[in-house]
């Protein structure tokens, strides 16, 4: 068995590394179970920083030793692709993105079934978890992950610029457009609106616009819906805002770090982004406009205000791990009510209803942000990207019209051609 898994490991590494970056070799797995060790792989995130600081507590309580690997988002994905693909047992607990990788990982059999574990402990309380996050961590009726971080799209804005221009905080998309226009006209060096522009990166933030205009990526019939009138209007609106009132030399590669940088450098009036990133804008060490930032719920489109409300990260157990009980112990501790409250106070919106209901849970949040989150949690949509297996490819397809509109192409034509491509993609996934 051991020899086979090494061969598989080598095979995958080989297949993926020809002419590419070399894959790191694995250290011998050892008998982690006997040694009382839990091997945990986490992404670079505020949540991880909090957990890292608290790990000694867990080690003391449980008598287990935690071996932590921490990686950037993309490197994390690549590690999983290589290690899980090879059936490696070197990872016990893994931080993963339920909406990005959940379906693919579950389909490939990488994730252990946690259904009986989550419902086995009334004290830990699985019922306390919000519905959207639970749905996203459940595949084919089996719970494969425990959500740890949730996100909703909110409107970040500059209080000073709005006041100077004499405009109210926009409640509808039309008001947002008018305000962006007015402010950018009055301040030539400041963009009226900024948001992500990268083909793939923008998809998640565009999704809330799509829903608020009455559309979705996939229709109720399971067919591509990005060629619908609602979707065309949403593409045209989102792309148009950036094209007409966005930063002067707008790049089509912006993910959140670039867009956030423009906003925090004081170069934009409005910015729509995930609420979980708010600390970047309000922390004086990172933001030039820390004391001037306001938050509001996503403005309402023709179909109302419908931001996504999703679990961006969860914890799962590697199915190939021989150390699943200890892995579960770690997850149980890391996602306990108390730890979730601590994380939430440190600025990480969590998935537990009881923590949101607790005044302490929102005590550290700006008041307007807490209100925006509460409103978004009510009417939020449970996904922010197409719910398919190969999410990466799907995002590139449905993101193409966003970029096309930003660069001045016709939104309608771009949506039509993306619609054909997306339908073909959906058909190929069904095979």
């Amino acid at each position: 068995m051991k020899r086979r898994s090494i061969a598989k490991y080598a095979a995958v590494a080989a297949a993926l590394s020809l002419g590419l970056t070399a894959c790191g070799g694995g250290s011998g797995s050892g008998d982690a179970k006997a040694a009382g060790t839990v091997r945990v792989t986490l992404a670079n995130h505020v949540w991880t920083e909090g957990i890292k600081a608290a790990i000694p507590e867990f080690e003391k309580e449980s008598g287990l030793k935690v071996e932590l690997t921490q990686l950037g988002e993309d490197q994390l994905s690549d590690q999983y692709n290589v290690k899980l693909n090879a059936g490696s047992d070197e990872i016990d607990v893994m931080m993963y993105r339920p909406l990005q990788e959940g379906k693919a990982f579950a389909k490939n059999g990488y994730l252990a079934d946690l259904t009986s574990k989550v419902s086995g402990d009334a004290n830990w309380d699985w019922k306390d978890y919000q519905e959207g996050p639970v749905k996203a961590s459940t595949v084919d009726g089996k719970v494969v992950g425990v959500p740890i971080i949730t996100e909703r799209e909110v409107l970040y804005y500059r209080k000073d610029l709005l006041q100077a221009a004499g405009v109210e905080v926009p409640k509808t998309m039309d008001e947002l457009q008018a305000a962006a226009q007015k402010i950018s006209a009055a301040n030539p060096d400041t963009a009226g609106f900024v948001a992500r522009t990268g083909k793939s990166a923008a998809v998640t933030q565009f999704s809330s616009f799509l829903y608020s205009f009455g559309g979705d990526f996939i229709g109720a019939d399971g067919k591509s819906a990005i060629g619908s009138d609602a979707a065309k209007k949403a593409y045209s609106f989102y792309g148009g805002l950036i094209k007409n009132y966005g930063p002067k030399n707008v790049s089509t590669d912006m993910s959140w770090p670039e867009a956030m940088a423009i906003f925090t450098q004081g170069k934009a009036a409005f910015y729509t982004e995930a609420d979980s990133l708010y600390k970047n804008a309000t922390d004086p060490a990172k933001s030039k406009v820390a004391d001037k930032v306001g938050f509001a719920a996503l403005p309402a489109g023709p179909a109302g205000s419908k931001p996504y409300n999703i679990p961006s990260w969860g914890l799962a157990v590697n199915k190939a791990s021989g150390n699943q009980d200890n892995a579960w112990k770690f997850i149980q501790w890391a996602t306990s009510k108390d730890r979730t409250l601590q994380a939430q106070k440190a600025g990480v919106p969590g998935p537990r209803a009881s923590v949101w209901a607790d005044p302490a849970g929102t005590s550290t949040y700006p008041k307007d942000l807490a209100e925006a989150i509460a409103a978004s949690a009510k009417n939020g949509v449970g996904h922010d990207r197409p719910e398919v297996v190969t999410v990466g490819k799907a995002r590139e397809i449905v993101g193409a019209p966003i970029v096309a509109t930003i660069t001045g192409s016709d939104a309608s034509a771009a949506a039509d051609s993306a619609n054909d491509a997306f339908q073909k993609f959906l058909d190929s996934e069904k095979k």
Partner: protein
Amino acid sequence: MSVLNTSRGNTSRGAARGASRGTARTSGPQRNFSAWANRHRKWLFAAPAMIFVGVLIIFPLAWTLYLSLTDSQGSVRAATEFIGLQNYATVLADVDRFWPAVGRTLTFTGLALVCEVVLGMGIALLLWRPFRGEKWVRVAILLPLVATPVAVGMMWRLIFDPNIGFANQLLGMIGIPAQPWLSGQDTALGTTIFMDIWQWTPMVVLILLAGLTSLSEEPDEAARMDGANAFQRFFFITLPLMMPTVIVAILLRGIDALKTFDILYATKGKGGGSFHEVETLNVYAYGLSFDYNQYGLSSAVLILFFMIIIGTMWLLTMRKKAVS
């Protein structure tokens, strides 16, 4: 160890005889092993290297070739079907991503290589003759070489940011309008080529400088006596003598440039940007593997890419032989 001692200086048959005489009193199996080891010592000594090559080069290649003939996707452990050359047909018919990627790979390599060799030659000539502060200049020139390509990519990405980057602010100071650099569809590839030149010209300088310092000075002096000017001496004496070194530099740098990945990935991310503007074959294959999990297709791209590299290497090696 006794095997090593007894075998020195003998032919393999003689060594075997010597070994069997020298170990007459040792037990049967040990004697047999010694005799066997002596007979096969050329294989025995080469074995570690052969295992290394086998495990790290031949096996991966063979496995990639195998994957390229299957419909492997999602997980490499999932059941796959042998589909012959279908992946190759798909890839070769792909005019949206594959062929543009081939074009970009060749453009990137060609332009970067020409600039690096010309610039590298110029700098090497400047550094050839001793001058004051030579050491400092050499250290300064070598600095880009020691930086990690990913870090280099990140650094230039910040400098070339269209809105808050240093490059545009600098241009603004002297009254030139902001340029799109990495964010422009037409300018992105050129900008990454510039970054490659910035980082790798020092390596070419090193190779060429080594070549220059090993040149005999006599032909150059003789030409000088005959009244040839610097230009003539370079083109008719130094350059022809340097040709083998230049081709080595082109060969080494060319293969490296062909498979450039980190700079492109660090600056433009998956897919080489929103319009695939810097997507070379390597970036494309990476995306197919890690983003789309289409291992069969990705392997086919890599095998084709491998053939391009082998072909280029072969052409350059032939050229080097002709020059030497």
